[in-house]
């Protein structure tokens, strides 16, 4: 159902200033803000990136990637609870922004942090679970970003929805990645993990409820 609705939404015509178009513009602007601010800071405008700029940049990109991943996962519950179908039209953009931030987070690690030292990176990936799970989360998201277009939705049909459930393990691994990276202060990772548990818990609850409803109508 969801996939068909999404396809319908994605293929609706026109660039008139419908509510969805306006909402998309607003979301695009909002999601760009952290990145624009970061670039400005890197060039000396606004708050300094501090004595360890590479760490600051990775921190900002990683956190916004994770936050947007959670926002993306919040679309379906919010749309259902508030009966706001408009939200679905924003999901792809939110997901692609999350992916962009996380991919940049990885690229900064690769270049500015690891300095393209392949041997050291492979060692990190093999020996350090928090890096392994972070990289796995990003790899899981790549096919989702690639198949996010209307064309791929059409071609994959029902399989598209199944494929895009990879966002669940990816989000779990992203939370674990952040959790394991922190030294002692787990308050912020705990917030994200709790939100994720809530978002996934809602889905489990709804799946069970609809299974029960089906069983009842058949019985």
């Amino acid at each position, binding site marked *: 159902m969801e996939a068909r609705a999404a396809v319908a939404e994605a293929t609706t015509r026109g660039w008139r200033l419908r509510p969805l178009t306006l909402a998309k513009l607003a979301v695009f602007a909002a999601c760009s803000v952290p990145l624009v601010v970061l670039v400005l800071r*890197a060039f000396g405008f606004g708050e300094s990136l*501090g*004595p*360890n*700029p*590479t*760490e600051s940049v990775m921190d900002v990109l990683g956190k916004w990637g994770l936050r947007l991943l959670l926002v993306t996962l919040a679309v379906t519950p919010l749309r259902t609870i508030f009966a706001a179908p408009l939200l679905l039209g924003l999901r792809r953009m939110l997901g692609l922004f999350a992916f962009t931030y996380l991919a940049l987070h990885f690229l900064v690690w690769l270049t*500015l*942090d*690891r*300095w393209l*030292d392949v041997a*050291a990176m492979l*060692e*990190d990936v093999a*020996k*350090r*679970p*928090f890096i392994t799970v972070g990289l796995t989360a990003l790899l899981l998201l790549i096919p989702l970003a690639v198949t996010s277009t209307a064309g791929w939705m059409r071609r994959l049909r029902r399989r598209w929805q199944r494929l895009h459930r990879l966002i669940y393990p990816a989000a779990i691994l992203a939370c674990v990645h952040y959790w*394991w*990276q922190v*030294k*002692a*202060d787990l*308050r912020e990772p705990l917030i994200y993990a709790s939100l994720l548990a809530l978002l996934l818990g809602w889905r489990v609850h709804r799946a069970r409820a609809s299974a029960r409803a089906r069983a009842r109508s058949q019985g």
Partner: protein
Amino acid sequence: MRHRATHPALRSSEITPEAVYVNRRAILAAAGALVPSLVGALAAETLKYRRNAALSTNEPKNSYEDITTYNNFYEFGTGKSDPAKRSAKFRPVPWTVAIAGEAEVTGTFALEDLLAPHALEERIYRLRCVEAWSMVIPWVGFPLADLIKRFKPTSRAKFVAFRTVQRPAEMPGQRYPVLDWPYVEGLRIDEAMHPLTLLTVGVYGRELPNQNGAPLRLVVPWKYGFKGIKSIVEIRFTERQPPTSWSRSAPDEYGFYANVNPEVDHPRWSQARERRIGGAFLTPPRPTLMFNGYAAQVADLYRGLDLQRNF
């Protein structure tokens, strides 16, 4: 306002003539007006010290700003900039330190009395954080060994335990149990007596700012930075190895020794390389040196000790 302690180690002959310091204060005030965030730091009293070139590295020093704005001092918050932003309420004056445990002389002493007999020296040390970054810092202090000798530890004193002040009203980070407050650290007595181990009261020729551990902290340059306990209120001689905050928090990640060692990785990240703070974006990581480059001086302390197990 920050405190204006007249430093007890000063003799009257060493006191700066009034005309000079009045002028200096005017300059500092002007500078302070231009850079408000540095007012507190610049107002800190300058110290009298000699340079110890023999025990200093020639590597380029980190800036005062790097050293005083990028800190791990969880008592003021877990962000690197928290200590500089959130330590203004902390009052390091007056200050007392308890000397306790296995020693002939024990008691609680005013900081001035504790410091009085010691001549200060500047030592430019590398600092390697367990988080794989490093700095080069001109500390001002004196050998911990010189202080320890005054209190005549007994033959039962095998370790030295240190404790940080606990003042949640002034240290907002202590209101959350991120670590089990107060922060505690410890050294083996031979490590404490090693000439490189510095009891530190200043940085860049000035008294320590709050975020760096005012008014008294430890610097052990061949160990990870967290061994350098800050704002010390107790020094206790013990027969048994004392608990240390980080090893109590995560025993499989942080040991008692915490010697810098590129061959013993932290379970969650490599210790083979480090990022020198203050370099531009485009600075490659540098290799971490055994005992942070102080192996020639300290390797003897650990003869026969399995450093993989005693990390």
